[in-house]
């Protein structure tokens, strides 16, 4: 039964996650924290840096991690495969039957309508992370400083995550 639930949950995420991994976070959080309680909110928040620090897309990593926690290697496989399944089917349909998919006016308008959706989903994700993840002035300062560095495009994401982690170690643990 768990495997069926994993399959359905990550199928839903796979079908509706437009616009990159971060915008998919509200969808993922809803499925694995709110609906199924597979991860606590705290575990979900820890999963985010873990997913960004390991190679691969964040949604795939979230699927594999959750599947593994709930159902071992088989669970990890089921969750990951069900997330990828819609991609396989859609790309297949488009390649062989819908060559002019994007020129279709309905599709173009639907995709245009997703721009405000992405903004709303990202703001929702930010709300979730900030409310339960940024709980003291130190985290806020790290966050703002890293935001400025990212905007200036001078640093890589992954090194910044490591720096944030090390600063966390120094401040929360060694202090």
């Amino acid at each position, binding site marked *: 039964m768990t495997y069926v639930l994993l399959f359905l949950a990550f199928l*839903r995420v796979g*079908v*509706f996650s*437009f616009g*990159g*991994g*971060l915008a998919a*976070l*509200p*969808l993922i959080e809803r499925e694995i924290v709110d609906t199924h309680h597979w991860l606590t909110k705290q575990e979900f928040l820890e999963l*985010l840096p*873990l*997913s960004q*620090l*390991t190679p*691969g*897309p964040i*949604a*795939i*990593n979230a699927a*594999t991690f959750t599947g*593994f*926690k709930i159902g071992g290697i088989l669970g*990890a*496989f089921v969750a*990951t495969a069900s997330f*990828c399944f819609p*991609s*396989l089917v*859609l*790309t*297949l349909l488009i*390649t062989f039957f819908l060559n002019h998919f*994007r020129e279709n006016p309905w599709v173009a*308008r*639907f*995709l*245009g*309508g*997703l*721009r*405000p*959706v*992405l*903004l*709303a989903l990202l*703001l*929702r994700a*930010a709300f979730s*992370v900030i409310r339960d*993840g940024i709980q003291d002035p130190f985290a*806020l300062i790290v*966050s703002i400083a*890293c935001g400025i560095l*990212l905007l200036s495009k001078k640093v890589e994401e992954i090194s910044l*995550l490591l720096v*944030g*982690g090390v600063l*966390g170690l120094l401040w929360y*643990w060694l202090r």
Partner: protein
Amino acid sequence: MIPLIRKEIVERHKLLSEEAFLEVLSLAQSLPGAIAINTASFVGLSLGGVRTQLLLVLATVLPSFSSIVAAAFVFLRFRELPFVQAFFRGALAVIASLIALSIWQIGTKIAQDTLDLVIAAFLLLLLLCTKVHPLFIVLLGGGLGVFLKR
């Protein structure tokens, strides 16, 4: 990840022309799911059909699959340790900045479009104040696009 794929496909193995790759990439970005997976899937299909598609997608997923399984194995045992908690609290602050950066990027793109901003505010309100599943927000926003855009 995308620059890596481009390097392998276009420069190293010359499987697709630069132009064809950009076409594939922009299609991959407009579909749901991970962009890297969509790209791998399209490239596989254009090179040799369904078997190549499955092979390339498997090859794309396998490294992240094995590394996250290994990471999860370790992490689930040691996540309670204070120094692990401290590290992840610090790293999570950086995740907040990454999300803020994405908000900035898409926000500046649609800042001139009042209709888009109004719809975004409405959808955010739904997400924060009701229990509606985010997938309906996607459908609702896309549906509004179909009826309101021209």
